[in-house]
């Protein structure tokens, strides 16, 4: 029954189950169902649609708007506001190259040029200039298909695209203790393919 306490829960959200035969729609339905069909699930639904459809086609966007009972004009407006939503096909591989000051002084523009040149050849790769990716201590940085890469070298860009991890940074190097408060437990993150998150080190 649709008289719910949460403000804004529209009555017209279709609450049909995830019976949609096309798997891509099911992913969107799951995201919407997780947030009980409330209109505020729009970004989560668009994130799911972007991931499962590759881009927000007119069809995908219309489906999300109808399922949530959100005006299509609002769904379209939201889809054009946020950087990571693409209304046109983005190709299989997707690459963001940060060009903000820290990465810029580390040579990001050259990396971007190399990546764009590689994308031109590969065709199935989309390269975008991006704002800060939160890897300023290990610039130039890139986000390729959701994975972060640090210290990217212009000449190593091609390797990056075909899975080469050359540019990945070494793992974190041990405990970080804070100035005379031994039980402070800030930790660098997991080892493995993610780049070094930077050491949190303290004065002795």
């Amino acid at each position, binding site marked *: 029954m649709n008289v719910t306490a949460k403000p804004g829960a529209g009555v017209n959200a279709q609450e049909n189950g995830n019976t949609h035969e096309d798997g891509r729609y099911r992913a969107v339905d799951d995201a919407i169902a997780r947030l009980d069909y409330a209109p505020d699930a729009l970004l*989560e639904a668009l994130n799911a649609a972007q991931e499962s459809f590759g881009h927000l086609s007119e069809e995908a966007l219309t489906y999300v708007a109808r399922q949530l009972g959100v005006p299509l004009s609002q769904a379209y407006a939201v889809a054009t*506001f946020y950087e*990571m939503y693409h209304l046109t096909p983005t190709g299989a591989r997707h690459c963001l190259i940060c060009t*903000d000051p*820290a990465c810029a002084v580390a040579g990001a523009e050259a990396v971007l040029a190399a990546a764009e040149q590689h994308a031109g050849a590969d065709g199935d790769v989309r390269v975008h200039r991006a704002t800060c990716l*939160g890897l*300023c201590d290990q610039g130039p940085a890139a986000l390729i298909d959701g994975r972060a890469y640090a210290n990217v070298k212009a000449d190593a860009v091609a390797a990056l695209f075909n899975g080469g991890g050359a540019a990945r940074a070494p793992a974190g190097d041990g405990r970080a203790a804070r100035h005379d408060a031994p039980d402070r437990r*800030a930790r660098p*993150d*997991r080892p493995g393919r993610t780049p070094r998150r930077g050491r949190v080190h303290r004065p002795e």
Partner: protein
Amino acid sequence: MLDPTDLDAHRAEGAFTGLNKALTAMTPEDVIEQIKMSGLAGRGGAGFPTGLKLQFTRAATGMPKYVVCNFDESEPGTFKDRVLMQGDPFRTIEGVILSAYAVGATEGFIFIRGEYPEAAAVVQEAIDTLYDAGLLGKDIMGSGFDFDLSIRRGAGAYICGEETALFEAIEGKQGFPRLKPPFPTTHGVFGRPTAISNVETLALMPDIVRNGGEWLKQWGGGKSVGIKLFCLSGHVKQPGVVEVPYGTTVRDLVERFGGGGFDGAPQAILMGGAAGGFLHPDNFDTPLTNEALNPLGAPIGSGVVMVFNQNVDLGAVLKTLARFFVHESCGKCVPCRVGTVQIAKLLDRITGGDGAPDDLARLESLGQMMRKSCLCGLGMSAPNAMLSTLAHFRPMYDRLIAGGGA
């Protein structure tokens, strides 16, 4: 080094003892009192006293109440929240639960920027682990306190670091900041009272609650109490996240903890990110406190310390920052939507060689007008970096105008 989502390992190191103490031995008002007494202020950049925020939210009449963790972290040069959350998500989540208990919130969100999919995965795994362990959901730690926490992902918009724009994103809308008042403590997400804090601010709460408010007061003082994470980047030998007490000097931070700059003494240090300002070498001995740095137009902000050596073209960096704000302005209010574009055009003209002396006057009046009339922090701080260089790096401009550009 602990696995970030290995709950037992972290509990063995003392995780959630603060929460346990709060839920078993403290009333919500006690928790608020400790946070107020500790002098903890917001670490995201705004610096609002966290204790007051919790107190106002608890006092607000609207129901239900919410707690939000602002993990949008899009300020250029900032990466401390990512390090914290991918390294030790439990610490911040414990802070979120403490805040919820303090204000009486039943639901909370961690808003994670779209560009941090890996961090989102780690945080989700941590949340799931906590639900399984009875530290989230119904009757947390058998205390009768219920609290649900979920992740809401952004999709690439620097403006969503502004708290009300963040609420708009959670509510499924574009990130257009709201007018203040009303403030989030009475009308936050879904128009309900909301306590929203930065990752680093929340991460300090468990220690404050466990050790009592006095613990934080060991370091710093005045409006800069306690310890702060700084993000060293740019031309510094050992870039990374460094946690030091307020009051440490900039030079100390760069040379002792950053291994010093390279290729000679730094030409300038960008403090506080794109919304901050450039510190002139003459002021490198300034202590890292709000009181000392704000008057110099180089605020601590989110803790960015970005070092530029001598052969960096500051004009080019200013143009990058101007372009950043043209790209990130949400476009809602006139002075920012059009002002950022006109600042970028003026800087292009000056660095391109056909700048005129009154362009500098035009930049100054446009920048000061934006600081007074823009609707939100983005617009107000967009001209900061440029204004700081007009004040402290005037020779560079004179050279550009006289010498026909870079």
